[in-house]
């Protein structure tokens, strides 16, 4: 696969690995946060940590759309799905996210119809095909995904489709990064910037990190060499005393982002004054809802919602994991009460969730693995 396979080359990885090692000051600990869960997934899936010296630690960030959905929103979605005639749709990622009374599969087992779609346009298609049902699309995701929802709503409006609405849970990445930077228990040396969200918002929005907080940011692609090279670029900035925003992923990310996509979001949606993030609590202006011009497509207005705030389970430490304060295995319930089969927190659900990625891919000791995997 072009633009994929060439970035999975072990030979080049070894070379980058050597360059990174050369840049390590002895005795110094380096902590980089990959903001995006996609990077977390890449790191574990390809075994990137095998190429890093011991004193570089990758800290998993909040950029997993599923992990930040609070329980109350899952409950709200199930509440809507239980209304007669409703066909709820969402991405496969949402199906196993726990609400307070079970996930979407459990809800379907009790009688709802919650179906996976590949694209919000597919949800709209279902609405067209089944005019006697209320089709609701539960939208999740950062700015990467929001334009698709916006374009779908524009299309529904243009076609005059009345049985379609969006349960909007889009969030914005910058306020989350800011919350982490402002968190007192955080000590990071730099950021691996989210590649795909940057195709939409561009690289400019990260400049405050370099400027105001003095931390380097490298916007990175999602193949393993992309990540490794980004770490190299971060190490170079640190070695040279720089703190800038760099774009490792320039083949895909234009510095200015995608103005048409931003325009679509702006036309259809508006910022919420505040939104609850799982584990992180309420963050101001950190999420989107349908704008007043598209209120007809707003499932929150079409269906009465209980909107009950459900507290995270006491034992859940997702907030600390999402802020990068705890490693997944440091959570008290990791792998015992909280497993992919019976997740307590959302981070154990999405393949992008730090706990799930670590549990599924990384749950073993380096030493034993090195012996076992020798070819």
């Amino acid at each position, binding site marked *: 696969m072009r633009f994929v396979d060439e970035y999975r080359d072990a030979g080049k990885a070894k070379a980058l690995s050597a360059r990174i090692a050369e840049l390590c000051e002895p005795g110094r600990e380096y902590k980089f946060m990959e903001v995006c869960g996609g990077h977390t997934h890449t790191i574990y899936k390809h075994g990137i940590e095998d190429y890093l010296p011991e004193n570089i630690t990758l800290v998993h960030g909040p950029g997993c759309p599923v992990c930040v959905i609070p329980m109350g929103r899952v409950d709200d979605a199930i509440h809507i799905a239980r209304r007669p005639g409703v066909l709820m749709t969402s991405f496969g990622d949402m199906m196993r996210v726990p609400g307070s009374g079970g996930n979407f599969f459990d809800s379907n087992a009790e009688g709802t119809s919650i179906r996976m779609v590949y694209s919000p346009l597919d949800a709209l298609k279902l609405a067209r095909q089944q005019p006697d049902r209320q089709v609701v699309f539960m939208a999740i995701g950062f700015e990467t995904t929001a334009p698709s929802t916006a374009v779908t709503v524009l299309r529904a409006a243009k076609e005059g489709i009345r049985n379609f609405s969006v349960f909007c849970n889009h969030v914005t990445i910058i306020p989350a990064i800011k919350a982490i930077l402002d968190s007192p228990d955080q000590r990071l040396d730099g950021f691996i910037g989210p590649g795909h969200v940057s195709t939409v918002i561009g690289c400019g929005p990260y400049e405050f990190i370099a400027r105001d907080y003095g931390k380097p940011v490298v916007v990175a692609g999602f193949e393993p060499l992309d990540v490794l090279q980004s770490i190299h670029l971060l190490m170079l900035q640190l070695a040279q005393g720089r703190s800038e925003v760099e774009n490792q992923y320039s083949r895909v990310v234009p510095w200015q982002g995608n103005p048409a996509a931003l325009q679509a979001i702006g036309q259809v949606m508006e910022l919420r004054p505040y939104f609850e993030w799982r584990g992180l609590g309420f963050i101001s202006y950190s999420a989107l809802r349908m704008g007043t011009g598209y209120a007809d497509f707003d499932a929150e207005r079409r269906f009465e919602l209980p909107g009950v705030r459900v507290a995270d389970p006491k034992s859940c430490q997702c907030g600390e994991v999402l802020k990068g304060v705890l490693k997944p295995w440091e959570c008290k319930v990791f*792998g015992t009460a909280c497993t992919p089969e019976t997740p307590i927190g959302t981070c154990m659900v999405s393949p992008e969730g730090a706990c799930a990625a670590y549990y599924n891919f990384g749950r073993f000791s380096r030493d034993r693995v090195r012996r076992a995997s020798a070819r």
Partner: protein
Amino acid sequence: MKPSDREQRVLDRVERIRGRRPVVREKLITLAHGAGGKATQTLIEAIFLEAFRNPLLEPLGDAAELAVGTSRLALTTDSFVVTPLFFPGGDIGDLAVNGTVNDLAVAGARPLYLAAGFILEEGFPVADLTRIAGSMREAADAAGVRVVTGDTKVVQRGKGDGCYINITGVGVIEHQARLDLAAVRPGDAVIVSGPIGEHGVTIMLARGDLDIEADLVSDTAPVHGLVAELLGSTDGVRAMRDATRGGVATILNEAARAAKVAVVVDEDAIPVRPEVRGAAELLGIDPLYVACEGRFVSFVDGAEADRALAALRRHPLGAQSAVIGRIAADPPGLVLLNTAFGGTRICDLLVGDPLPRIC
């Protein structure tokens, strides 16, 4: 304590918990219980094995081995509930026959007889049933087996999905080898008999709701001839499994658990067709967990691996067979994947079906 020691302590505790007796926590059956992953295993072990426990059932193999008179018989059963019923490369009829033939074959048996049970939904077209029966006959002829008994039930509209078929197969075990996943041992080679995931991806696309097109056909095929080729070439075969629900990764995990060994697989040795990979990337799923219906994994004495591979490749169905990994002693119970990129990771069981994802 060092962080890495603390981590190791947590991981040891996790592994201990994974070894515990399974409990079904859900109050209601969900689709995950049928997906062939962890939820299915838990259901089977906690409910069925618990209720029916006996030494013949306990191996939970593709087929049970039974002594009748002086013969060793293999018995296997499977229900087929595929949607759509007709798909590129086959239909529920040949799928059902091949699936049963394969369970017998990988248990080391020569397939002989089939019993077929149909659960038809009111409103199912008789013409489709005729076509399915025809495919079954063709598949049975190809595999040299006969349908000797059957049963037909009709359920009300809305209580079925057109046509469900259960097939039970009876075979005879004629060779001396004791095939058993628990017999797999360090040093053994892991061989897959062809490219993986074609059936599962074909079915996903054939459902039509993803709107994805590809020139893919199901890999459904009877593997008994290929198995015979393999068993004839060497005495070093420890065990075989056909890679159906849950895909190759699930089988590797079953072997790791049954034999208390580590299975170490090389990602770049695994044959995957580009279209399968393309669809998998687009949907965010891993072909290792996608069902095949004409592929099996064999665990073969490492010293015999070349001979085994050569035998498999001689057969048209096995032309793309490949050694994809080997067995190590430690860490027992885990499957490790050496990535093409040069890293290593766990390759665990999934809870349920691999789900298309966006993140």
